[in-house]
């Protein structure tokens, strides 16, 4: 097993951050609010006017709280960087996000586990979005090729009246390992929630995604969209759930799982529950191989079958 030089930890985490698509320069730029966590240590934390980041290391992880003051329009994305650089480790992140009334903020979170052989990354997040506030949270993962990682993010979101929550989760680089993602969002009047999850499973990966949106307030609306590709012996199970409790609520579950090869397995469960009779919920779920017409169209432009399939899959996961 490789030994890890902790004196170069920031450099290593910045490098991993870049591998997951982040910009390391942003982690040092004082105009960006940011938080950099390696294992159970906070390596850097930067608050800016209107965005306060409180954090502390614990035995096996980090506790963090991000507060965006009411009516703050945060000009630059808040950068969050979580990673475990060694081959083994446990990282437990307990986080709270408090987005004040009328605020607007965009988070770019990158999670990197480039050398993982036996790493566990457990995340528990509570998100509160105030009245008329808007939060966009984009999380991109970079996993090493060995797949020796367990990722278990659990998120609870409450969106007050007129608030907006956009969430994108992307794990398409490296080997997933085991992913067990759960997100529950509760929406008040006229609140909006858009969830989009993209995962590319390979080898022996196990993917489980459960996303639930409770449309409690009248006129609230939600979209649960997932794009999962499984190849080799990977397995996926996706549950997209919308509950229409409030009057005139609108929701849609859009789940597409692509299976490549004969050994991969996929399961999709769209679940709609109409409690208020004026709620309108719809779903589309498809599991199968890549659409034949798409492949043939690209082949008619000169791509081989393999190239055509790759092009379609890359597009889905982009």
């Amino acid at each position, binding site marked *: 097993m490789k030994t890890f030089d902790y004196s170069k930890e920031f450099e290593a985490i910045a490098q991993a951050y870049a591998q997951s698509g982040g910009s390391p320069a942003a982690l040092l730029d004082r105009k960006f609010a940011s938080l950099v966590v390696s294992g159970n240590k906070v390596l850097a934390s930067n608050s800016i006017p209107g965005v306060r980041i409180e954090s502390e290391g614990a035995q096996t992880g980090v506790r963090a709280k991000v507060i965006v003051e009411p009516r703050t329009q945060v000009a630059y994305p808040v950068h969050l960087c979580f990673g475990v650089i060694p081959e083994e480790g446990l990282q437990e992140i307990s986080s709270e996000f408090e987005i004040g009334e009328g605020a607007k903020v965009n988070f770019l979170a990158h999670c990197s586990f480039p050398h993982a052989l036996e790493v566990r990354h457990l995340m528990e997040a509570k998100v509160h979005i105030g009245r008329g506030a808007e939060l966009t949270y984009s999380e991109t993962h970079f996993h090493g090729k060995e797949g020796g990682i367990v990722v278990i993010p659990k998120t609870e979101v409450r969106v007050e009246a007129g608030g907006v929550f956009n969430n994108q989760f992307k794990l398409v680089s490296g080997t997933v390992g085991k992913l067990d993602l759960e997100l529950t969002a509760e929406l008040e009047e006229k609140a909006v929630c858009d969830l989009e999850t993209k995962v590319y499973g390979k080898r022996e990966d196990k993917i489980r995604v459960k996303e639930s949106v409770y449309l409690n307030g009248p006129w609230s609306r939600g979209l649960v969209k997932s*794009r999962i590709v499984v190849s080799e012996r990977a397995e996926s199970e996706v549950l997209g759930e919308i509950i229409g409790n409030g009057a005139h609520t609108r929701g849609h579950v859009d789940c597409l799982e692509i299976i490549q090869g004969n050994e991969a397995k996929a399961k999709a469960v769209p679940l709609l529950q109409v409690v208020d009779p004026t709620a309108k919920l719809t779903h589309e779920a498809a599991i199968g191989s890549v659409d034949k017409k*798409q492949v*043939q169209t690209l*082949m*008619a432009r000169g791509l081989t079958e393999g190239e055509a399939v790759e092009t379609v899959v890359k*597009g889905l996961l982009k």
Partner: protein
Amino acid sequence: MLQIEDVSLNLNGGPILKGVNLRISRGEIHSILGINGTGKSTLAYLLMGLEGYHPTSGRIIFEGEDITDLPIWERARRGITMAWQEPARFEGLTVQEYLLLSRRNGEGSLSPATCLERVGLNPSLYLSRPVDQALSGGERKRVELASVLAMRPKLAILDEPDSGIDAPSLDQIIEVIRTLAEERSSVILITHQEQVTRIADRASCLCSGMIIRTGNAEEMARFFSIHCRTCSHINEPEGELIENI
């Protein structure tokens, strides 16, 4: 350039194409006329080499080479391409990326922007748009035609490029087809609109999987209008209408 020699195709135990013979020259626009269900699209799929559309008998010769057993992509790399009547949608692929895929084999192929301009779409508005459900049916068909242009094909098979296109845009589509031919591409133009057929050099009328007549496009458009539009015995051609080709 293209010879279809006595090609038949059975699907699900039934004959769909019956002894089709056709010769198409370089730069020729050849229209295939027929009412719904006569086998027009099937003929297009068979020529492009789509899975499940291999001739039961007969041969397809392209530039002197027997391509009957070649897969789609090898036919494409020899210069054959096709525009679908209802083109596929692609999530996450922009119009620019889609058009660039068409350029990969051809030297001197046209830029995505030029192709879009030719089909009447403003590049600054369309290049970055995804080729997904956000495009209307008409827009998607124009992008499909643009991707055919981008290939600078030797043979373009266009399956009803006129369907779903509004009247003012039809002239533009017709102009694109003419341009293809002027640049020495052969075009197989599948349609059931006489107006569109008239731009062809020649036309063939397909009925019940048989080519019952081939001739001058103007004459064939008239033939189709008189005999096929009002035909009471759909897809059962009467003996006297069948002309030996």
